[in-house]
C-alpha cells in the first residue's frame, strides 16, 4: 500500500510481506527501503539537472557572442549556478542513488538506518539550496565562486556554509551504504562482493576521500571569511580544494563505470571477461585516480617541478591504465556475451544486432564511446605537464570536462534514469519513439558542441570563463574573431544539445506523471537482453540478470571461448585516434616553443 504522502503513486510498488519484491528485469530481490531511497535521490538529481540545464541556455548563448545574452557579471553568476547544479548536485544525488543500487539492491538486502539516509538527503538538499541562494544573491564586494572559490577571493560566507552542509549531508547519506557492506561481510565473510557492488564500494571510498578534502578546504576558508581567523594560506587552500574540486569528478567517473558494467550486463547480455582484471582496474583507481586533480596546479608557482612530474606523469598513468582496462573489458564483455547467445556474426554483428532502440542501451554505449574518444584522450593530454600548458584555462578545458561529465557521466546517468523509470517507478515511456531518439540526438549534438569547444580553445587559444572574446578582448591588440565560424557551429549545436536535454526531462518527468503503469513483468521483457528466454527461471542469482543466458548456445562455456576481434578492431581505432591526437598536440606545443626552428 502506498504511503499517505505518495500522492502521485511514485513510491507505490507491490512488495511481499517481508518488504521485498523480485525485479522482473534484473532478477534482484529489491527491498522497499532501498528502492524508495533510490527514487528519492534520483528524483532530486533530476530537479538539479533541470535547473542547471536551464542555466545552460543563458551560459551558451552568452558565449556565442552573436547572441551575447548576458553581461560579464551576470554571466559569471549564471556560470557558477550552472556548474554547481550540474557538476555537483545532479551528479552527487545520483551517485548516492547508485550507491544504494550497488549496495543493498544488488546484494538483496534492506537499506539499514533509513532515518539516517533521509537525514542525509535533507541536509544535502539544505546545502544545495544554500549554495544556490548564496550565488544568486552575490553582491560586491563578494564574487560568484564558480568552482574555484580560491582564498583570498571574497566569497559570500553563506556559500562556504552551504558547501560544508552539503558535504556533511553526503557523508551522512553514504553511511547506510557502508553499513550494508559491513553487514554483508559479516553475513558472508567468505564470499566476494559482486563486481557492481565492489565498484560502488570503491566509488564510496574515493567519494569520502574527496569529501573530507572538501571539509578540510572549506571549513578554514569559512572561518577566514567570517574573520574568525585572520589569514589563510592560499597555496595550501588550493591543494586541499582540488581534492574535492577534481575528486568529485573522479567519483562521477567510477560511478559511471559501475553503471556501464551494470547496464551492459542487464540490457545487452554482457559478460565480465575477467573479474580479477576488472577488480584490479578499480583498485588502481582507488590509489591513483585522485592524482588527476594535480593538473589544475601545473601552472601553479607554489608546487615543485618534482611534485608536478610525479603526479602528472608516473602516478597518473596508474589511473589511465585502469581506464584502458575498462575500455577493453566492457566492449569485450558485450561482444563475448552476445556471441555466446548466438548474436555474433561477422566483425561487428554483435553490435549491429544489439538493442539500439532501447534508450538504456544506446545511452550506455554512447557514454562509453564518447567518454573514451573525446573525454579520456583529452584528459590524459591535459594531465601531462607539458601539454597542459596549451590547454590550461582555455575553452578546450571546458570541452574536455563536458566530454567527460556530460557525454560520459550524464549520458550514462540518463540511461540509468530511463532504466529506473521502467523497473522501479514501473512506468512506460510517454513516447517510445522519442525515448529511442533522445540518446542519439543529445549525444550527437553535444558531441559536436564539445568538439567546437576544444577546437576554439586549442586552435585559437580562446579563454574560458569570459563573457566575450570573439568580438575582441577589450584593451588588447589581438582579436580572436577568426574563431567566429567555429563558434557559430558551437552555438547552433549547443542549442540542439539543450533541446535534447529538455527532451530528456520531458520524457523522464512526463513518463513518471503520465506514463502507463507497468502491471505485468512481460511489459518489461524488451529491457532484458534479447527479450530474455522463453522459460523464466525463478531461482536466478541475486546478482545476475534474469534469464541472462537463456538464449546462449551453451551457457556453461567459459566466456573466453568466444572471439572478441570486433573489440580488438575498435581498440585499434581508439589507439590510432589517441596517437594522432597526441602527436598533433605535441606538434602544436613544439611550434609554440619553436623547437628546431
Amino acid at each position: 500500500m502506498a504511503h499517505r504522502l505518495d500522492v502521485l503513486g511514485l513510491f507505490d510498488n507491490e512488495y511481499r510481506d517481508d518488504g521485498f519484491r523480485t525485479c522482473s528485469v534484473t532478477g534482484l530481490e529489491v527491498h522497499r527501503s532501498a528502492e524508495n531511497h533510490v527514487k528519492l535521490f534520483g528524483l532530486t538529481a533530476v530537479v538539479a539537472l533541470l535547473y542547471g540545464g536551464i542555466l545552460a541556455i543563458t551560459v551558451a548563448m552568452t558565449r556565442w557572442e552573436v547572441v551575447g545574452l548576458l553581461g560579464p557579471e551576470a554571466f559569471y553568476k549564471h556560470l557558477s549556478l550552472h556548474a554547481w547544479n550540474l557538476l555537483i548536485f545532479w551528479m552527487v544525488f545520483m551517485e548516492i542513488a547508485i550507491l544504494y543500487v550497488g549496495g543493498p539492491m544488488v546484494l538483496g538486502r534492506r537499506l539499514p538506518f533509513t532515518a539516517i539516509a533521509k537525514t542525509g538527503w535533507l541536509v544535502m538538499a539544505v546545502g544545495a539550496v544554500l549554495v544556490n541562494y548564496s550565488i544568486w544573491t552575490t553582491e560586491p564586494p563578494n564574487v560568484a565562486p564558480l568552482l574555484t572559490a580560491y582564498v583570498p577571493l571574497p566569497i559570500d560566507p553563506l556559500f562556504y556554509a552551504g558547501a560544508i552542509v552539503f558535504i556533511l549531508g553526503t557523508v551522512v547519506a553514504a553511511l547506510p551504504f557502508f553499513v550494508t557492506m559491513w553487514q554483508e561481510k559479516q553475513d558472508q565473510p567468505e564470499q566476494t562482493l559482486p563486481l557492481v557492488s565492489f565498484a560502488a564500494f570503491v566509488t564510496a571510498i574515493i567519494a569520502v576521500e574527496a569529501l573530507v578534502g572538501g571539509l578540510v578546504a572549506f571549513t578554514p576558508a569559512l572561518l577566514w571569511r567570517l574573520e574568525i581567523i585572520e589569514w589563510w594560506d592560499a597555496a595550501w587552500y588550493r591543494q586541499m580544494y582540488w581534492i574535492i574540486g577534481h575528486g568529485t569528478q573522479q567519483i562521477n567517473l567510477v560511478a559511471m563505470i559501475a553503471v556501464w558494467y551494470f547496464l551492459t550486463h542487464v540490457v545487452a547480455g554482457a559478460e565480465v571477461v575477467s573479474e580479477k582484471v576488472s577488480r584490479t582496474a578499480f583498485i588502481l583507481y582507488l590509489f591513483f585516480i585522485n592524482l588527476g586533480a594535480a593538473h589544475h596546479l601545473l601552472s601553479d608557482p607554489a608546487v615543485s617541478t618534482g611534485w608536478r612530474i610525479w603526479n602528472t606523469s608516473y602516478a597518473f598513468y596508474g589511473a589511465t591504465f585502469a581506464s584502458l582496462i575498462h575500455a577493453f573489458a566492457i566492449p569485450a564483455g558485450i561482444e563475448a556475451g552476445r556471441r555466446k547467445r548466438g548474436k555474433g556474426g561477422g566483425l561487428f554483428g554483435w553490435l549491429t544486432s544489439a538493442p539500439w532502440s532501447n534508450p538504456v542501451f544506446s545511452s550506455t554505449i554512447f557514454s562509453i564511446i564518447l567518454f573514451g574518444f573525446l573525454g579520456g584522450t583529452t584528459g590524459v593530454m591535459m594531465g601531462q605537464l607539458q601539454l597542459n600548458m596549451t590547454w590550461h584555462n582555455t575553452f578546450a578545458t571546458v570541452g574536455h570536462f563536458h566530454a567527460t561529465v556530460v557525454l560520459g557521466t550524464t549520458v550514462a546517468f540518463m540511461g540509468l534514469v530511463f532504466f529506473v523509470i521502467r523497473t522501479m517507478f514501473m512506468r512506460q515511456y510517454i513516447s517510445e519513439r522519442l525515448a529511442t531518439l533522445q540518446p542519439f540526438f543529445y549525444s550527437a549534438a553535444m558531441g559536436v558542441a564539445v568538439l567546437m569547444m576544444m577546437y576554439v580553445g586549442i586552435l585559437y587559444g580562446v579563454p574560458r570563463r569570459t563573457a566575450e572574446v570573439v568580438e575582441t578582448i577589450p584593451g588588447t591588440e589581438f582579436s580572436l574573431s577568426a574563431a567566429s565560424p567555429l563558434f557559430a557551429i558551437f552555438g547552433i549545436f549547443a542549442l540542439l544539445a539543450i533541446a535534447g536535454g529538455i527532451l530528456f526531462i520531458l520524457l523522464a518527468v512526463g513518463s513518471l506523471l503520465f506514463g502507463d503503469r507497468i502491471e505485468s513483468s512481460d511489459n518489461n521483457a524488451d529491457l532484458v537482453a534479447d527479450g530474455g528466454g522463453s522459460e523464466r527461471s525463478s531461482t536466478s542469482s541475486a546478482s545476475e540478470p534474469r534469464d541472462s543466458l537463456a538464449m546462449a548456445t551453451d551457457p556453461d562455456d567459459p566466456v573466453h571461448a568466444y572471439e572478441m576481434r570486433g573489440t580488438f578492431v575498435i581498440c585499434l581505432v581508439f589507439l590510432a585516434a589517441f596517437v594522432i591526437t597526441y602527436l598533433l598536440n605535441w606538434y602544436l606545443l613544439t611550434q609554440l616553443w619553436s623547437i628546431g626552428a
Partner: protein
Amino acid sequence: MTSTDANATASPLELVRRTLGQAWRDLLSIYYTNTPIWRLLKSVGLLFFGFFCWSASSLLLSYGVDWTVLTYTRAYGFVLILWGPLTHAVVVPFVIRLRRTADRPIFRSVARHGSKINLSVFLTLVLILGTAPVSPMLLDFQSSLQNGSGSDVNPDLVCSKSDGEITCQLSDSDGIDAVVVTSGGREIERLEGPPFEFTIREDDLEEVVGQKEFVVELRDADARTLRRYRRYVSSVPER
C-alpha cells in the same frame, strides 16, 4: 576443419591474403549495413571524422608544414562532413532499395554501380578541392593575430599613501576614456579624461575580509572595461 586449424597450416602469404580478404568483407558489410541505427551511427561517425581531418590538416598547414598531402586530407575532411552522412543516410539505402526494385536496364545499372559512382564523385570532389580549395574550407588561424587592428591598453597603476590618503596615477592614458574607482561595490571616484590621477581617503574605503581595498577600472568610449586593478591598502607603499 576449423578456421583456426586452417590458419595454423596456411603459408604466411595465404594468411595475409585471407586476413585482407576477411577485412575487405568486413568493410563491405559495415558499408552496406542499413538499419536506421547504423545509418545514423555511420553518418555521425563520419561527420566527426571529417571535422577532425579538416581541422587538424588546417592547423598543420597554418604552421607552414608544406606537405601537399595535407591539402588533400583537409579537402577529404571537409567533403566528408557532408558526404559521409549523405552516403549512409541517403545513397546506400537508395542503392539497396534500387537493387531490389529496379526493372529497367538503366536503373539496374545504376543500382549495380551506385556505390562506385558515389565514391567516384566523392573522390573527384576531394581531388578538385584539394588542388583548388574554396574559401569556406580555409580555416584562418593566424591573420587576426597579425593584423594589429587593436591597441594594447595595459598601463601601470602606481599608488602611494601618506596621512590617510592614497594617491594613484597611470603610466599611460592612451585608449582610456574613463577611470572608475570603487570599494565594496560603491563608486568613490570617477575620472572622465586624462590625466588619470586621483586621491582617495582611506576612511572612504570598505573593508573586505579584514583588509581595506579598492578597485580601479579603466574603460573605453563604449564604457567597456579594458583593465581592472585590485589594490589592498596594506600593500600600498608609504610616500
